[in-house]
């Protein structure tokens, strides 16, 4: 049984209200399942609280079928419905189900939009910030080194742990919703020093520089080390935010990587020795030209037909740098009549893109800049999509399987070319 502080005992006894009590009850069940001994305090929580598709609301019809019912019964997994107050921790809403303006283009119904809008209003009224992105660190929530967080979204978790040195496990909807109320999360896994040490080595023998290469390396690493912590060294060049973002998203998708060390690059890996921290060194995996080619072929194994009818960029959500780059690539060109180009980002980054004229450049070319979601999260692709082109290893891992379509992986330039020509011409250089 997890040990409770006096404060936590009081929350469990209901002194902070029924919702906090239910949150504490769930967190204790969760801590016991993990085998955690106690809790850490957190004031940085990112999740997807309270929102639900109509069928889930219908399931709780007898409880009122509203936000309160869903939050109590689903998010807090409670047997009764309680009043849900304003959240106690700094709480952020990650990605959602549709674009608040372009939902018709995404094929959403009026009823689905009404459901989305009413959920969103409830989220805001409960003191949860509407970041509406898988990249909270690009939209106003950048943790600091050592900060205990409770985040969902595997690509954000791996970024927080590895690139920033913040501390979070890959939390789920129910644990983050409970943490928003109780400001606690089990003291297990990445909250603890001993858990953050490297387990396996990855030796990078071919140059990895552009984001396309970082994405492939990430996909390879996840497949190799599964859900352990890799220590990566070798020919990795030019680290940047977007390269880490794509690397981590890919590694979290092909395996279950939640933290990585890159020697001399990430903050907890000044040296190989520091990255392993005295822990036993497991296997060594080598990323060479053959491994790079195999990774490319695996990522493109769901592509057969070269007639591309959909190009999706923005997984994880594009940064302002990536939107500017895409706008520059497509300026003066047109999206092919047989194809669509959708680019996804957060609302705050879109505001910047609007101010800089990128949204307009994309619109003139026939592309749409969308927020809040992506094709995998919303399961929204242009009508009749059969073949998609993607610059994200994570998205090519998920989208074709979810939507029953073909998918190609390539560079951003390959994807923009495909959008403008309707043909896939990506090749491994």
């Amino acid at each position, binding site marked *: 049984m997890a040990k409770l502080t006096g404060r936590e005992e009081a929350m469990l006894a209901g002194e902070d209200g029924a919702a906090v009590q239910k949150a504490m009850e769930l967190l204790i*069940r969760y801590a016991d399942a*993990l085998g955690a001994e106690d809790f850490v305090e957190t004031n940085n929580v990112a999740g997807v609280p309270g929102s639900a598709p109509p069928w889930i609301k219908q399931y709780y019809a007898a409880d009122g079928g509203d936000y309160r019912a869903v939050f109590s019964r689903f998010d807090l997994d409670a047997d009764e419905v309680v009043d849900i107050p304003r959240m106690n921790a700094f709480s952020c809403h990650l990605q959602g189900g549709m674009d608040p303006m372009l939902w018709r283009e995404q094929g959403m119904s009026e009823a689905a939009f009404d459901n989305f809008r009413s959920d969103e209003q409830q989220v805001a009224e409960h003191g949860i910030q509407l970041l509406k992105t898988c990249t909270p660190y690009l939209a106003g929530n950048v943790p600091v080194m050592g900060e205990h967080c409770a985040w969902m979204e595997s690509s954000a978790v791996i970024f927080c742990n590895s690139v920033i040195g913040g501390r979070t496990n890959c939390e789920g*909807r*129910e644990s983050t919703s409970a943490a928003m109320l109780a400001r606690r999360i089990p003291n297990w896994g990445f909250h603890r020093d001993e858990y953050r040490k490297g387990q396996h080595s990855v030796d990078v023998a071919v140059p990895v520089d552009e984001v396309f290469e970082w994405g492939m390396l990430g996909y390879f690493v996840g497949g190799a080390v599964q*859900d352990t912590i890799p220590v990566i060294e070798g020919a990795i060049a030019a680290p940047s935010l977007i390269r880490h973002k794509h690397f981590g998203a890919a590694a979290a998708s092909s395996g*279950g990587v939640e933290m990585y060390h890159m020697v001399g690059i990430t903050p907890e890996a000044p040296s190989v020795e520091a990255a392993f921290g005295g822990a036993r060194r497991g296997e060594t995996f080598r990323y060479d030209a053959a491994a790079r080619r195999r990774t490319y072929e695996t990522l493109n194994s769901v592509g057969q037909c070269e007639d591309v009818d959909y190009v999706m960029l923005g997984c994880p959500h594009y940064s302002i740098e990536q939107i500017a780059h895409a706008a520059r690539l497509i300026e003066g060109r047109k999206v092919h009549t047989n194809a669509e180009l959708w680019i996804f980002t957060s609302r705050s980054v879109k505001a910047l893109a609007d101010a800089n004229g990128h949204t307009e450049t994309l619109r003139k070319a026939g592309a749409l800049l969308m927020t809040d979601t992506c094709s995998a999260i919303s399961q929204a692709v242009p009508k009749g999509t059969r073949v998609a082109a993607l610059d994200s290893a994570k998205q090519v891992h998920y989208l074709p399987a979810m939507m029953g379509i073909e998918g190609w992986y390539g560079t951003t330039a390959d994807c923009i070319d495909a959008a403008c020509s309707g043909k896939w011409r990506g090749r491994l250089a």
Partner: protein
Amino acid sequence: MSGAAMAKARGQTPDYIIHGRCVVPGCVEGEALVTHDTISGWGGVSPMTGTIIESRHELNGVSFAGKVLVFPGAKGSSGWSSIFHMTRLAGTAPLAMLFNVMTTKAALGAVVLRVPTLTDFDRDPLAIIRSGDLLRIDATQGHVEGWRAIR
């Protein structure tokens, strides 16, 4: 395994017993569904049918509804727990779970599924249990009794 075969097996000494740590308490009896591949929740499972949909997964197209799911561990998106939570609502949840590698995804998923779950075994269930075996899970006491399917 047919109902008659299950009834026959129950009277016999189990073919194997595995001990583990309780993740979620409870007792249940049912048929094993074993995979050596880790499981993605969101994007890897269709909650309305309990079917594994991940491309290249050993169980692609197979439903775990009503089965004892025996697997190495959870991977992928943090939507793991909510997808498994939805299988509980949709009536397509596994009957129980046995997994080797503890993660926050698998722990929280098991908690909100509210099905008997064990981990940290004295012997590797993946090396012993085969799909179709009859399992009696006592997660509260921390053991699994298994009977080989009659083939």
